[in-house]
């Protein structure tokens, strides 16, 4: 098994359980920006309650769900760690929170055919990747956000991005990152 096959099995499990999902994190930012090395895959699920077993019951013994969950204080998201020990692969499972932007991001997600996964998969829009990355604001997030801005250039819906950054109080960081990009990349 490799990481793409493992992710594919988790998405199949979500569909069997009737749980809507989207791929996020570095996989999503790499699709809209520049692919980079990462240690894990992130998937957001929309389901009632705090029971990832609804999904993992459809996975085989190659997958191992850690007991401990964690909580993200900015958006109120819960996270579980799912391991595939034989390839040292980690998938972070996030429960869709009630946060306004997380809800908007999930409802605007787009479905695309991904040959690597041999199936269609949902990912957030480029604009929503930028908004979330700037909100977390770690160095790797800022770099990912800049890459998406640079690669997508004038195709981005800037009023949408700016309105959410204004609401989150991250407009200054957005403007700083945008100003650091060579202008020709943003305009053409």
């Amino acid at each position, binding site marked *: 098994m*490799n*990481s*793409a096959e493992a*992710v594919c099995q988790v998405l199949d499990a979500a569909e069997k359980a009737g749980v809507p999902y989207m791929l996020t994190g*570095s*996989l999503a930012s*790499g*699709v*809209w*920006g*520049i*692919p*980079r*090395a*990462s*240690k*894990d*895959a992130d998937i957001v699920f929309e389901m009632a309650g705090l029971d990832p077993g609804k999904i993992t019951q459809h996975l085989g013994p190659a997958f191992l769900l850690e*007991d*401990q*969950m*964690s*909580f*993200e*204080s*900015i958006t109120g998201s*819960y*996270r579980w*760690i799912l*391991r595939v*020990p*034989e*390839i*040292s*692969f*980690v998938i972070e499972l996030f429960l869709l929170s009630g946060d306004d932007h997380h809800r908007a991001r999930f409802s605007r997600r787009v479905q*695309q*055919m*991904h*040959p*690597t*996964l041999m199936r269609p998969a949902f990912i957030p829009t480029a604009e929503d990747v930028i908004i979330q990355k700037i909100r*977390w604001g*770690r160095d*790797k997030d800022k770099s990912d956000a800049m*890459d998406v801005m*640079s*690669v997508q250039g004038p195709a981005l819906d800037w009023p949408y991005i700016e309105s959410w950054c204004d609401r989150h109080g991250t407009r200054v960081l957005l403007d700083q990152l945008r100003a650091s990009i*060579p202008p*020709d*990349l943003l305009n053409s």
Partner: protein
Amino acid sequence: MNPDFKDLADDIYRRRVLRARRMSLGEKLATSFELLDEANQTMRNQVLIQNPDLDADLLDEQVARLQTRYRAISDRGIFKQAAA
């Protein structure tokens, strides 16, 4: 930054961006997965080099411990343990 260096850095970055623009979304996702597998395999190899006698189970355990430590650093206060 020295203006000459800034021009050089911008030029290198511009090339990376233009290369990414020439790739399809599917190609980029495939590249991300390849990089992910390489990173995880490198970590396994590093643990094995330091501990050549580890059996498969202990190797998995050791790598999992390293990944937990990396994640704690990466989370940097954003995520906290929650009651199960």
